[in-house]
């Protein structure tokens, strides 16, 4: 379709450049829009010429800027997780929310909150990694025990089953320890309440996760041709898979511990990215990150706008965008096939 784009490095760079500009504009819009609209010039001043006596500067520095940045990183991480999952499994429906990974992270968060209420933010992030890990391991176990491997439909059903099981267990624990409100937040997903600490957590795990993703991106392009081909070309497929899973755990875990279970970004964005710039994962990973960031920043603005002054869970917004896309992919699915 866009083959002229996929063959020209120059056009790809232009797309990256344009996306960055769009992202910058949306961040500016996200920061200036809110209960009190703040003019963009004030936003500029608050960032580069901070005056702590002005309320509007305080609002921007303490509330809106961290929120917008958290949206950027969370969106990017979820999109990259999805891209890595789809690249590793060659399964078009693979993504953090469909596979129940986000539910796993939320489950671990509830367990930790119940038994160690004094847990620090850092501890919660670790728990979130572990929970994401549990879900991934469960899915891969189902895949390796079943004779036909993980077909798209089996992956989706396994994700539904594991997601339901983990979220049901979370509900029971939350009921017992009176954590329903926190659980409800993690399940619906939202960026309200993000501060600079959450940004620091996102940044640390993000840098590591993104780096690994970029390192294995070239190998993933080869892996996409089929495991036998990749092995024949001298790729260590097991090592790539382990590093890929590590990336997914770091990125999804960090995203869920900060913003809860936001669905469908990890599903849609990698497809869009591959559709536009092709299957070279050295491009897919960074461009997915940019697209994911843009989508979540915009969704977050919409979630604050449609029912102002109340916030709609941002997960509901991304689902409404994601469901038609999922249906489109589902219509193309055949028994056992990969595409």
């Amino acid at each position, binding site marked *: 379709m866009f083959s002229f784009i996929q063959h020209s490095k120059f056009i790809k760079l232009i797309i990256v450049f344009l996306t960055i500009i769009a992202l910058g504009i949306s961040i500016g819009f996200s920061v200036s829009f809110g209960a009190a609209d703040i003019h963009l010039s004030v936003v500029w001043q608050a960032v580069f010429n901070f005056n702590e006596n002005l309320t509007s500067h305080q609002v921007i520095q303490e509330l809106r800027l961290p929120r917008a940045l958290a949206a950027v990183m969370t969106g990017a991480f979820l999109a990259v997780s999805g891209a890595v999952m789809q690249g590793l499994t060659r399964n078009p429906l693979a993504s953090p929310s469909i596979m129940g990974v986000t539910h796993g992270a939320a489950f671990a968060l509830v367990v930790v909150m119940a038994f160690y209420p004094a847990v620090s933010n850092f501890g919660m992030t670790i728990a979130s990694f572990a929970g994401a890990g549990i879900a991934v391991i469960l899915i891969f176990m189902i895949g390796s025990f079943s004779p036909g491997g993980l077909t*798209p*439909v089996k992956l989706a059903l396994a994700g539904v*089953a594991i997601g339901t099981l983990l979220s049901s267990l979370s509900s029971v624990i939350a009921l017992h320890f009176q954590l329903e409100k926190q659980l409800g937040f993690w399940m619906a997903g939202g960026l309200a309440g993000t501060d600079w600490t959450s940004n620091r957590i996102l940044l640390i795990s993000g840098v590591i996760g993104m780096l690994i993703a970029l390192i294995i991106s070239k190998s993933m392009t080869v892996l996409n041709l089929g495991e036998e081909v990749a092995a024949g070309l001298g790729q260590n497929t097991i090592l790539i898979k382990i590093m890929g899973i590590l990336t997914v755990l770091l990125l999804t875990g960090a995203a869920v511990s900060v913003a809860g279970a936001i669905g469908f970004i990890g599903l849609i964005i990698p497809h869009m990215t591959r559709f536009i710039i092709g299957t070279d994962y050295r491009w897919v990973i960074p461009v997915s990150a940019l697209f994911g960031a843009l989508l979540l920043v915009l969704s977050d603005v919409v979630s604050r706008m449609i029912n102002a002054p109340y916030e709609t869970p941002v997960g509901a917004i991304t689902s*409404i965008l994601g469901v038609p896309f999922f249906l489109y992919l589902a219509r193309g699915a055949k028994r056992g096939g990969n595409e």
Partner: protein
Amino acid sequence: MNTRKMRRMTGIIALLMLLIVVMFFITLGTGVVNISPQEVIQTLLGNGTDQQELVLFEFRLPRIILALLIGIGLAVSGVILQSITQNDLAEPGILGINTGAGFAVVLFIFFLQDSMNSVLSFFIMPLFALAGALFAALLIYVLAWKKGVNPIRLVLVGIGINAGFSAALAILQLKMSPQDFRQATVWLSGDIWNANWTFVLALLPWILIFVPYALQKSNTLNIMNLGDDVAGGLGSSVESDRRILLIIAVALAGASVAAGGAIAFLGLVVPHIARRIIGPLHQYTIPISALMGGLLLMVSDTIGKNLLTPMEIPVGIVVAILSTPYFIYLLIKEK
């Protein structure tokens, strides 16, 4: 029907009935106020204290009967859906039919409930749920249609529809008053805590009409299970039978969901266990699934009610925890 199998079925049905009766007395006796089995019998015979009579007749009895009926409805709905889609993993919950019904009920709570008296609303709510369930089923059928309905596509489209209705619900719920919001939330996780006799009366006719009808259609279902080609070859008008049976399955799911909330996975797991015990013939699987579904829901409700007293775990959550491991096992086995 050969006589050996008939005898085996009679035995299993007798066992399930016995378990249901035992469960019935356990459930009647347990709760915030404990009542011993002798006292339960005394009270049922009309010799109990006022407090015992109130607890039993107004709270526990309708709840148990409702649980039984909902379990029957969902299990039979699952049996029919699995046969007509020739898909072992079809179920009203996974296909999004329950969430469709849920969406309609929440719309009803939001817009109409305050404008009518409560008794009337108990009878109207199942109709709304039915409309929502039918709408969801139609949507799935149309979206999965691509020169015929492929079972795999049906399930995937169902999962998508499910997610879509859930998101729409999340947005709608925020616009509700706190009281309506609570009602909707509890209801969506599958709950029968506010059971009363009116609900029982509202659900009963659906079960009494459609379950026997499905049983009477057993032979058609048996043939459908063999696949469209065989069914057509044997002279069965596949598509029209499929549509009628689909409507029955959706009606049973919709009515059950209206009474008990969105309880998922029960309709999937129970028919599997029934088939494993007695084989694929619907003359056997429908009655056994019905009883097992009723029993499973009674047990789940009792667990949910008593595990964390005084807090109640919504029955849908207990059902999910009990049945998803079996579902995962089925997934692993499935080729």
